[in-house]
């Protein structure tokens, strides 16, 4: 039975058991997920799962409940419908229920790479092997993963949708004397991931990260590489461009206001790569401009937050969204308009050249009189959601820049900074031309960003004391 047939069967069951007035939506997702993990330069965890699950949400007599399960036998589906109906009838009234998505065509989504969807463990292992070999004897760790989802939606209003997605990601570090270098990529096709290229890049950065020095805390100009920028995008998305938090006045977002530097344009682009063409409520997904040339334009909505705001759903409903709110999970920070070829990064010591692995970053570094090059951010947590003040640490390499040159490695630092303020008007001193896609911790989400030069970042302490 296909996912669409299964979803239709669940809706029919709801009609039979709950009557014609029940509003219901069902999502059935089949997932083939695999992840090959390596540490100490050997594969130590190698996992795969083939699962199928159904999620049901229904609204009956003004009350709403949701249920899900993996028991897809006739008895299992019946039990799911019965317990969700029973749950809804016991719930208090839900005056904010926005109704079901009406029948509408599902947008076209990019094609799925079948070789990625059904990749074998040997193919992931070979990429890991190439990463390890390219690191030239440095200790390595990381993962290579593939994911395939086939998902169908049906609701009792007659709307149906189906889509598939496949993706691959690789993330690894190389380590020398406790100093790490990182390389991380998201791709629509496993064949686009080059383990050797990533391993060599991580190793070069690890070599350049050796013998770090302590720097005093304070405000520094910074160049963030794409992995670090990805953290900014994720936190801006979850806490700022979230329609629920916006409605609750917990978000900094003020549509129509020039809240960011004029170089900042942020677009959520779920179909910019392999992705499911509809959200958890069946609404078609499409590109949504959140910030345009520094001016906040929109926040992400599901049907509930859209109804509250008098707007349309933007196709960002997620399971559990009534609690967490709608999420933009495919955010792209546009790069600078392409200019002349950038110079190659330089080093006065000869040991730090590998810190700069691409021409975009090199061009940004070249403009810095004194500042820091940051590869990655780690364990970032929000201290205040409204101002989006975040604390966290640098990871996987920090270097001091003087007079446009990376001069030496620096020990990790802790920061405490307001993300919108750091990206505010006049605060962005440069962007790389190319946005590089970074994987999220879960499949289906990615963050695309170029390297980014910011006027000031508040480092509040050294990580070692």
């Amino acid at each position: 039975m296909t996912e669409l047939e299964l979803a239709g069967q669940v809706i029919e069951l709801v009609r039979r058991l709950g009557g014609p007035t029940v509003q219901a939506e069902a999502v059935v997702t089949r997932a083939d997920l695999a992840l090959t993990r390596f540490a100490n330069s050997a594969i130590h965890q190698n996992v795969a799962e083939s699962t199928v699950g159904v999620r049901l949400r229904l609204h009956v007599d003004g009350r709403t409940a949701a249920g899900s399960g993996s028991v897809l036998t006739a008895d299992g589906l019946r039990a799911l419908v019965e317990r969700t109906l029973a749950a809804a009838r016991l719930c208090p009234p839900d005056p904010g229920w926005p109704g079901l998505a009406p029948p509408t065509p599902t947008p076209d989504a990019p094609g799925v790479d079948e070789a990625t969807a059904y990749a074998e463990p040997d193919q992931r292992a070979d990429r890991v092997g190439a990463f390890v070999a390219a690191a030239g004897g440095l200790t390595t760790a990381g993962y290579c993963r593939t994911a395939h989802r086939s998902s169908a939606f049906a609701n009792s209003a007659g709307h149906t949708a189906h889509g598939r997605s496949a993706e691959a990601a690789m993330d690894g570090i190389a380590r020398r004397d406790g100093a790490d270098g990182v390389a991380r990529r998201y791709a629509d096709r496993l064949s686009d991931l080059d383990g050797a290229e990533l391993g060599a890049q991580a190793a070069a950065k690890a070599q350049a990260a050796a013998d770090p020095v302590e720097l005093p805390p304070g405000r520094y100009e910074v160049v963030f590489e794409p992995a670090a920028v990805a953290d900014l995008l994720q936190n801006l998305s979850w806490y700022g461009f979230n329609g629920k938090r916006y409605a609750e006045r917990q978000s900094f977002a003020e549509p129509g206001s020039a809240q960011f530097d004029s170089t900042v344009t942020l677009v959520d682009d779920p179909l910019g790569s392999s992705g499911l063409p509809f959200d958890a409520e069946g609404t078609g997904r499409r590109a949504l401009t959140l910030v345009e040339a520094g001016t906040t334009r929109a926040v992400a909505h599901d049907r509930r937050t859209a109804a509250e705001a008098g707007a349309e759903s933007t196709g960002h409903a997620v399971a559990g969204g009534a609690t967490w709110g709608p999420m933009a999970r495919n955010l792209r920070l546009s790069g600078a308009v392409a200019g002349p070829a950038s110079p190659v990064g330089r080093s006065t010591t000869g040991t730090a050249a590998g810190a700069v692995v691409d021409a975009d970053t090199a061009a940004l570094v070249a403009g810095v009189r004194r500042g820091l090059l940051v590869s990655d951010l780690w364990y970032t947590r929000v201290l205040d959601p409204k101002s989006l003040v975040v604390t966290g640490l640098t990871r996987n390499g920090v270097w001091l820049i003087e007079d446009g040159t990376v001069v030496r490695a620096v020990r990790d630092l802790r920061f405490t900074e307001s993300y919108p303020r750091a990206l505010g008007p006049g605060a962005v001193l440069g962007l790389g031309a190319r946005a590089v896609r970074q994987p999220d911790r879960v499949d289906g989400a990615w963050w695309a960003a170029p390297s980014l030069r910011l006027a000031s970042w508040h480092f509040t302490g050294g990580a070692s004391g």
Partner: protein
Amino acid sequence: MTEFDAATAAVQAALDAGARYADARVMHRRYESMTARNGDVEELTQDESIGLGVRALVGASWGFYAVPDLSDAAARDAGRRAARTAMASARVPGPPVDLVPVEAVTASWASNCEVDPLGVPLSDKGDLLVGATRTMAEHGADLAEGLYQIWDTAKWFVSSEGHRIDQRIRECGGGISATSIGDGETQRRSWPSYRGQYGTTGWELVESLDLAAHAAQIAEESRALLTAPLCPAGETDLILGGEQLALQIHESVGHAIELDRILGWEAAFAGTSWLDLAQLGSLRYGSELMNITIDPTIPGALGSFGFDDEGSPAVKRDAVRDGRWVGVLAGRDSAAMASLDYGGSVRADGWARLPMVRMTNVGLEPGPHTLDEIIAATDDGVLMDLNRSWSIDDKRLNFQFGCEVGWEIKKGRRGRMLRNPTYTGIGPLFWRSMDMLSSETVSWGTPNCGKGQPGQTGHTGHPAAPARFKNVRVGVSA
């Protein structure tokens, strides 16, 4: 076909395909959660999931495969796929894998549960949250939120060494929080803890929290925090409440003593540890007041079980004794690699996930004082409680934690409420500065411990009591 039959078929298929060791878990979990906001139920979710995960060791390489189908054919296919995945692992091989011995047993175990949480009428549970959140809204909270969560898990474990263990573990908990929104910032107060209190127990735990009785007070405190003075910046004596100390233990001790991290297995993601195995038994981790145990046998604590997901029985061990580091959280393979003779701390968060080293109940043994005595003995300091944010580096050394609320301590008395309290430090230096410890221990439950790739959410317990730390840096801000 029983769950044991499915697990046995998967293990046998893995052995037939070349594995020298295999184990399989069938897990059936029912989950229910409800959230309420401002006097209305916001979301009710129920989930039921059953499936099988099989782990195969071929030579020196592991493979794992999971399916939701318990038929004989599906179970055998999963076993074969696990072995095949292990063979692929051998393309990038590591050192030989051994497993520390553990007695193969046939056993059953169940957690204590007085009131079946899934048996409590939904309307009663809804009324509890709706009532408490309505009270908070009436007392000034802009966002009044309540939550409960219930997990009812049955597990059947079989290994090629002869294990045959079934367990039923019921866990639940909940809490409330009040958020007040001012110009440019928000303030929150929670009861009894950020995200609530959880245990391996029945609904009696949630009833004991008496959410309704605390609703008005936390709402008023969240509003009062908007105009409270900021926590001053500088070094001072810091008194931590038990809930925040539980988080401190979790982050700066529990994760640091995970053997897989110490061995580098989590280097690219969760991170490593500042601890060096060569110093096990000799390293001074903290002051002599610091006694940390690993104890999955504590009745009702969230990290309790009868057997871990490798079939090792629950055993209490020391992690830090009189301030000295003496033990780790280990699995059978990591322990063998480190030449230790015990595992017992391996769990998975579902049938589709690989068991890995996780905290059980990692807690601080009580001291001789009360919180009031600690305050009375403090001339100048800050008391902080209830976690608001947490961040620690990848070696588990440098941390910065924010709390919901602080209070000025002057001349042995609790004074003004303080806004946005934060503190920061380095794990072992911080623990060595602990000079007073209370006897008022609570086993706090943490249901949201993230680790592993693919990600897993662990349930851990942390017995903790209020304590005082000397000369801590507080008041870090943007």
